[in-house]
């Protein structure tokens, strides 16, 4: 047992923190208020290797481990949760499934430019009427010669408006249920593939998402990921990894809100003394600190397990990832709520960061599996024994 970061992991942490504090944090408020896509930060993340952290170097990535990845996501999200999720989607939801399921040609054509940040990817699973129940998807792909013809729509696709590549999940055989789902790699600009204008959301304003329409979109069979019918398995395995990224994003948001609440509580005076001297505030801060640490440990455990699974593919980490995501995301909504409370009226004002953290935290309980779905996953594992 050794529950601490290795020297290499600490170096990644420092690199990510320096980048986040020097380059991301100064822009975070403006990005949020203008809902501006941080193009220049995405380019910088590409230079730093942050868009393909756990992809081997020979495939265009940084060749680091998943613990390093989680640590880097936390640091970036501590500055800006939008930038954090842009990073998380490209790493977890696009590079990771390509690394695990793509053939060599696809790895060369897609994984390498995506991992190096030359291209940006997005993940098309959710539909207007199919979210938690991914098996109910309506988008279809029908074979036509050596092509597949895709029809349907996908929504809430983070990075969608700016992505060069989408991994899209389609129903290829309705009778087979989950085994009738197949994943395809679709390039931006393919005829019949139409990303819509960005969504307007409560939080993570700078991370653009959108609906995407597929209208008789013809994709060559060489763009199929892995094999026909493998889509659901790919999606679930991908989300097991993605949840670590979202958990780390939630952790970064909570950490930022907590640090600001601590600093503010020492300065702000009420009833003749700093409010930090009041147990009402001090005990809140104590609970935040404890819960943040608990979340970090759960995330590291899941990430370390995913690292072991790289060597031993039979090893599963669905339960540990779900535990980390559920705990960290609910923790982040609690912690940002309480941190805003410490700030009082200033917390509610858009002049300060606290309301941004509060808004940004909320989505972490929803995307890549809601808190309810996390409980379904955990309970199913526990009941199986």
């Amino acid at each position, binding site marked *: 047992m050794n529950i601490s970061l290795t020297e290499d992991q600490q170096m990644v942490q420092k690199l990510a923190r320096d980048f986040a504090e020097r380059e991301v944090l100064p822009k975070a408020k403006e990005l949020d208020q203008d809902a501006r896509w941080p193009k220049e930060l995405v380019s910088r993340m590409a230079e730093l290797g942050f868009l393909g952290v756990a992809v081997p170097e020979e495939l265009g990535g940084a060749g680091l481990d998943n613990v390093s990845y989680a640590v880097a996501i936390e640091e970036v999200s501590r500055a800006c949760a939008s930038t954090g999720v842009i990073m998380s989607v490209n790493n977890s939801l696009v590079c990771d499934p390509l690394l695990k399921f793509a053939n060599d040609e696809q790895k060369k054509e897609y994984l390498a430019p995506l991992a190096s940040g030359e291209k940006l990817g997005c993940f098309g699973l959710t539909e207007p009427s199919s979210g938690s129940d991914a098996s109910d998807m309506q988008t279809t792909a029908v074979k036509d010669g050596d092509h597949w013809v895709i029809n349907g729509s996908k929504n809430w696709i983070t990075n969608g408006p700016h992505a060069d590549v989408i991994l899209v999940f389609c129903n290829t055989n309705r009778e087979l249920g989950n085994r009738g789902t197949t994943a395809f790699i679709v390039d931006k600009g393919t005829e019949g593939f139409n990303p819509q204008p960005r969504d307007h959301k409560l939080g993570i304003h700078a991370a653009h998402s959108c609906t995407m329409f597929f209208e008789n979109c013809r994709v060559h069979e060489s763009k199929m990921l892995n094999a026909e019918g493998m889509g659901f398995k790919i999606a679930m395995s991908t989300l097991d990894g993605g949840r670590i990224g979202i958990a780390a994003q939630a952790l970064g948001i909570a950490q930022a809100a907590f640090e600001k609440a601590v600093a503010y509580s020492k300065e702000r005076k009420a009833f003749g003394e700093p409010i930090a001297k009041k147990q009402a505030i001090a005990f809140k801060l104590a609970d935040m600190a404890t819960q943040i640490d608990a979340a970090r440990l759960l995330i*590291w455990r899941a990430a370390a397990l995913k690292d072991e699974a790289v060597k031993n593919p039979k090893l599963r980490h669905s339960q540990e990832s779900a535990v980390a995501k559920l705990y960290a995301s609910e923790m982040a909504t609690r912690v940002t709520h309480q941190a805003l409370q410490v700030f009082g009226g200033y917390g509610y004002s858009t002049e300060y960061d606290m309301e941004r953290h509060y808004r940004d935290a909320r989505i972490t309980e929803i995307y890549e599996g809601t808190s309810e779905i996390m409980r379904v996953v955990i309970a199913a594992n526990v009941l199986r024994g």
Partner: protein
Amino acid sequence: MMFSPSASHRSFQSRARDIAETLDAAAHERDELVPMSVYRALADQGLMSVKLEEALGGPGGNVVSYSLAMTEVAKACASTAVTMAVTNMVGEVIHAFGTDAQRETYCSALARGGLGAFALSEVGAGSDPGGMRTTATKEGDHYLITGDKQWISHGDAARVLVVWARTGGAGSKGISCFLVDGDADGVSVAKHEDKLGLRASHTAALVFENVRVHESALLGSLGGGFRIAMMALDGGRIGIASQAIGIAEAALADTLTFVQASPALRSSQDAQWRLADARMKLDAASLLTLRAAELKDRGESFSLPASMAKVFATETAWAVCQSCVELQGERAERPDSIAARCMRDVRVTMIYEGTSEVQRIVISRAILT
């Protein structure tokens, strides 16, 4: 980074599990006694002095091993576990602050199965030990200890009592620590407390009436007692967190069996949610506890992580036990209910060795300075 226990950790864990399997918590609770043979068996496996080096008769284990072993024992019998926790803590504090002679006498005795008790609390001094009134008065080369101590786990059966008493002025600087044999003249049991839970663990109110101890019984320095108590409790909190986790794991395992046997409950989201939340929070509690243990093993500062572990693990364990009882409904109302016993047993973990409130004081002080 590596989360799985080492071979040595697992060896302590499995030895603890072997003994745990022989325990009959329901019978011990009914008898209001854990037989001394249980403690001797634990001692034989090195579990009453996990960290003690081999030269003094210990197994030379570490804090992570201790934590894992504690959880295993607590899964089977929380009363046995608290005696194991306090005895390990007493052995450790004597080892940390004692002279060679004190170590050889007492640490070795504890490793062989003698029990150690921790006599700090008083009627008017619990969370604030600085308010204690027991005194130790110098008389020649001896001290005379006089006063009352409260809530002393197995204070009636201890081979050695670590006793805090006032040797100087008011406040925490006037407190010193002494090692007193359990059978010393002048030590008597005023009362066996009747308690909500941990009914197989005796809790005694002790009276010290001119108890004469030689000055060599002083542990650490004169006036250094408060620091010794705080240091002991920092470590003790890892033990209590581990105990609470074990108790809650037992309630959860019992409840899981209950749910698995019922198709209606298996498919009920209320039941599923309770199981999922329990698993999630106990995982978090366990990681916080093992982290504190590991920091202590590495000789790093662990007071803050230990307090985090204790408040999180004990409050989680309480919530899990409560939820298990709720889920089992009528089944938990029966006298032989494991979940209900766990709920009663676990309640005190939020109180002893520093209440949840004291943990929050420790944590908030650490993060606000």
